[in-house]
């Protein structure tokens, strides 16, 4: 049975020192209830794999504020003073990845790929210490897959079998991290019954989801409210 009552139940197996992948781009598409539960539990020495690790003191940045995070694998620090500060102080280790490389490494982790050659990063600091190879006249860097103990995912709709649908640009890294963890926890705005989703309408098949719970309330923080 994949359905859980809440984040506490879904994340019961979380321990100090674990690697957690989180969907979301900045504060959009964040598994807010999962993050709150990790903060409440106070587990420490976490590695967070996420495009931003929060922003503006919110989202995953709460875990930084509480000093629960020792490593971050991300693509962007801008807008995240907590990460910038702890990175500068050396209290959090940060591994910066080009955003597309981060996405592809996570996908590779989920898809059983042992590594891949990407043109991104050739001739830059990203390629330092990595194999660079010319293939059919173009140079590529070898990148390795990423995996985690837990993935926390936010979806718009989920069914009792863990099938998920995302909403607009809240999709981002969510379906990818769901594939690459030992245990994937999905919090969904709306939980529906078996067969309520058409097979053609499912963005992420339930095979990748271990626990699903409904969380109707989300803050959905806007980072930059731009209007015309």
């Amino acid at each position, binding site marked *: 049975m994949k359905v859980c009552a809440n984040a506490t139940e879904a994340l019961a197996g979380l321990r100090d020192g674990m690697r957690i992948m989180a969907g979301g*781009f*900045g*504060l*959009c*598409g964040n598994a807010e209830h999962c993050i709150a539960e990790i903060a409440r539990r106070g587990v420490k020495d976490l590695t967070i794999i996420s*495009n931003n690790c929060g*922003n503006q003191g919110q989202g995953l940045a709460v875990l930084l504020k509480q000093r629960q995070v020792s490593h971050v694998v*991300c*693509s*962007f*620090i*801008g*807008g995240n003073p907590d990460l*910038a500060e702890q990175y*500068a102080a050396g209290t959090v280790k940060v591994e*910066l990845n*080009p*955003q*597309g*490389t*981060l*996405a*592809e490494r*996570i*996908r590779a982790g989920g898809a059983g790929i042992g590594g891949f050659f*990407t*043109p*991104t*990063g*050739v*001739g*830059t*600091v*990203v390629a330092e210490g990595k194999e660079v190879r010319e293939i059919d006249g173009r140079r590529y860097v070898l990148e390795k897959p990423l995996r985690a103990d837990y993935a926390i995912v936010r979806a718009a709709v989920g069914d009792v079998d863990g099938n998920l649908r*995302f*909403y*607009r*640009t*809240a*999709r*981002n*890294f*969510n*379906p*990818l991290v769901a594939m690459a963890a030992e245990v994937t926890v999905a919090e969904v705005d709306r939980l529906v019954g078996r067969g309520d989703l058409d097979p053609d309408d499912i963005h992420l098949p339930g095979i990748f989801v271990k626990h699903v719970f409904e969380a109707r309330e989300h803050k*959905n*923080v*806007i*980072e*930059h*409210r*731009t*209007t*015309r």
Partner: protein
Amino acid sequence: MSWSKDDMVRRAAAELKDGQYVNLGIGMPTEVANHISAAVVLHSENGLLGMGPFPRDDEVDPQVINAGKQTVTVLPGGSVFDSALSFAMIRGGHVDVCVLGGLEVACTGDLANWTVPGKMTTGMGGAMDLAAGARRVVVLQTHVAKDGKPKLVERLALPATALGCTNRVITELGVFDPAGDHFRCVERAPGIDEVQIRQSTGAKVVFTPST
């Protein structure tokens, strides 16, 4: 008289052609959207094609954002997708043009635009993928730094974003194409002469007959 920021943005918009898929980087490149007359489709690397203008007050949706985390809209015909597919579009050469901001461009096409040693980095985000992957890279930047140092150079002093990737640079002085061991100046801002350009450029400049 050199081009204003607005002129530069308009000049970049003129680079775009009907039917192209276009990614506009964060900062000045984002403003290019306001001046596009061609029927292009805007790509945002967080997973959106068919990006529309900022929403009206009553249309704001926190879950519809661009790569700068600004609230935007989705035009009819638009689509959303995950980050792996979004960067497959970029790396796979499906994005026709990318307009990026720049800190330095070398005449070899090498681009530096993501970090300055000694300053706190923001991370590269999608910049390296866009620079290495887009079919055509147009860089929008000032011709010289605040201290007067040329930003069009023979060889990058700053850490590279990607090598040999830049097809065109638009500055307040004109339009310049990296051509290996020199820049080809294909357009000058009104009233700007060759001497001014040569003095402000850290690499050889060749002027095309039309300039």
